[in-house]
């Protein structure tokens, strides 16, 4: 193996697993074992995973409690949708759209992060919540400035470009970037801020810088996820970016386990399929119980396994070699 050059990778075991999984799903799709409906659910699961990975960076690794994640998801979604609607929808504008979604979300995160990241835990949560509400109101009234965005009625006419391949490739890239980031000196600096901000500051970590870094990169993930989401259903409604959507992502992160990439992936996929699966599996007469079953899952989870499914650990194939030792 070439040990000298760049190693932007996940380790060969993870890559093999990813490629095999991808081919398997493609074959199943081709054989119509997975119908278009479940394909769409699969895409949604992947998009949720990307967004939740971002929130995990913000909350799970850097320890900054944000309740405004869906706002950045919305910024990415509307930004990308506006771009592809203006320039026409094709692979290239889609790529550009994802980039624009990420950059827009990142810029906004930077601008609001500077003043509010000095707040701690509960106070930060309320401030990000406030920001989320502001963004929702802006989306609701967006048609006053950009008629194309449709305001509260929703934005239509977006090209349906997102497919399983897009989601898979972007999600794989998102996992690689996050994994390489958290298992590095920068990652350790981020985690030290979460563990003890004062002690981090006392060992030379510029905590303001790293809080902002974690927040901006995490929100860029939301922006990327939003861009994919916009082109999945080809319709955007401000209601999809409200406070409750932030809670959804938060649930995925907490149930998967704070500070665990593996946990976020498993929880995002499991959660999305659980919600849809219950819709299919339950007889019509007890459909209403769906809304009881999954909050109940949350309650039980927190009682039985408060650290989340993975509780800060990872699949060993996601870890760099030096981290694989027994603790």
């Amino acid at each position: 193996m070439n040990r000298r050059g760049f190693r932007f990778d996940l380790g060969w075991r993870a890559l093999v697993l990813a490629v095999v999984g991808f081919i398997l799903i493609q074959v199943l799709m081709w054989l119509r074992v997975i119908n278009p409906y479940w394909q769409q659910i699969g895409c949604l699961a992947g998009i949720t995973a990307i967004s939740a990975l971002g929130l995990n960076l913000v909350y799970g690794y850097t320890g900054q409690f944000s309740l405004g994640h869906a706002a950045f998801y919305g910024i990415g979604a509307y930004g990308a949708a506006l771009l592809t609607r203006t320039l026409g929808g094709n692979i290239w504008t889609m790529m550009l759209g994802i980039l624009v979604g990420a950059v827009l979300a990142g810029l906004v995160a930077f601008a609001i992060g500077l003043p509010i990241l000095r707040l701690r835990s509960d106070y930060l949560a309320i401030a990000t919540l406030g920001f989320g509400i502001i963004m929702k109101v802006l989306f609701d009234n967006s048609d006053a400035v950009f008629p194309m965005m449709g305001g509260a009625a929703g934005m239509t006419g977006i090209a349906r470009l997102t497919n399983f391949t897009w989601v898979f490739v972007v999600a794989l890239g998102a996992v690689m970037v996050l994994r390489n980031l958290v298992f590095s000196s920068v990652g350790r600096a981020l985690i030290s801020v979460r563990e003890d901000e004062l002690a981090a500051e006392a060992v030379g970590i510029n905590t303001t810088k790293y809080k902002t870094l974690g927040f901006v990169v995490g929100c860029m993930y939301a922006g990327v996820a939003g861009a994919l989401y916009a082109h999945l259903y080809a319709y955007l409604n401000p209601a999809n970016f409200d406070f409750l959507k932030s809670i959804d992502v938060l649930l995925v992160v907490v149930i998967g386990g704070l500070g665990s990439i593996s946990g976020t992936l498993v929880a995002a996929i499991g959660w999305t399929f659980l919600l849809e699966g219950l819709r299919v599996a339950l007889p019509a007469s007890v459909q209403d119980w769906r809304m009881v079953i999954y909050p109940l899952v949350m309650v039980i989870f927190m009682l039985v396994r408060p650290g989340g499914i993975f509780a800060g650990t990872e699949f060993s194939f996601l870890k760099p070699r030096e981290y694989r030792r027994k603790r």
Partner: protein
Amino acid sequence: MSGSGQTRETLTESDPALLEVRGLTKKFGGLVAVNDFSMKVVKDELVGLIGPNGAGKTTVFNLITGMYGATSGSILFQGMRISGKKPFQVYQLGIARTFQNIRLFRQLSVLDNVRVAYHHRGEAGVVHSVLRSPKFRREEKRVTDRAMEFLSILGLEQRRDALARNLPYGEQRRLEIARALVAGPKLLLLDEPAAGMNPFEVGRLMELIRSVKEQFKLTVFLIEHQMRVVMGVCERVVVMEFGEIIAKGKPEQVQQDPKVIEAYLGTDEP
């Protein structure tokens, strides 16, 4: 000329200071925690800051390290004004500290706890980390080697992969010292390093402090409120009570000082 060339006995506050505190005052609302506090720490010294509970010792440390802003007064380190600087900047200038109630990164491994403290020396940022560039890997190795060196000095190399929170108390104290040493500070501030230890452990700790001080040419400034601990190890002590300095000098002299005895034992008067 000065400092290491001289024998310990001749070090006094008239020598050029590594750290100089002038008229430092800190008020929390109406409470004066530190009042007109002035002192010097000379290079290569081992100075103790003692005083009863609540005298303001830790506040002095928090002021020196930039965790609190001073109400008035100034702090100079190597002749440079450091009051007003942020804690991470003070650390990067060469002042490291430990905490009275150990503050480790509990969910990080022992090795990572020490590596974090060397992070500011690294130049490989986000992009190099994400791309795992050769520069990133070189630095990662350098940081790891450096951290391991300090873990072995403190006898923790076998524990490198344990989570910090799983260490026994004594090892946690040692890990905190390893973390404070890794960047090669010039001045080490130890806030009650012997707290919660039995006399045997205290003896070993003091031995350790003396040896790392020699090995790394450190200047040490430590807080302690147990008199007998300070007497054994400090060359000079500063005694505080109610935010003010009530005595300074060699341990034996200070021990005889009626004001110090009164601060520790109280007076006969009702």
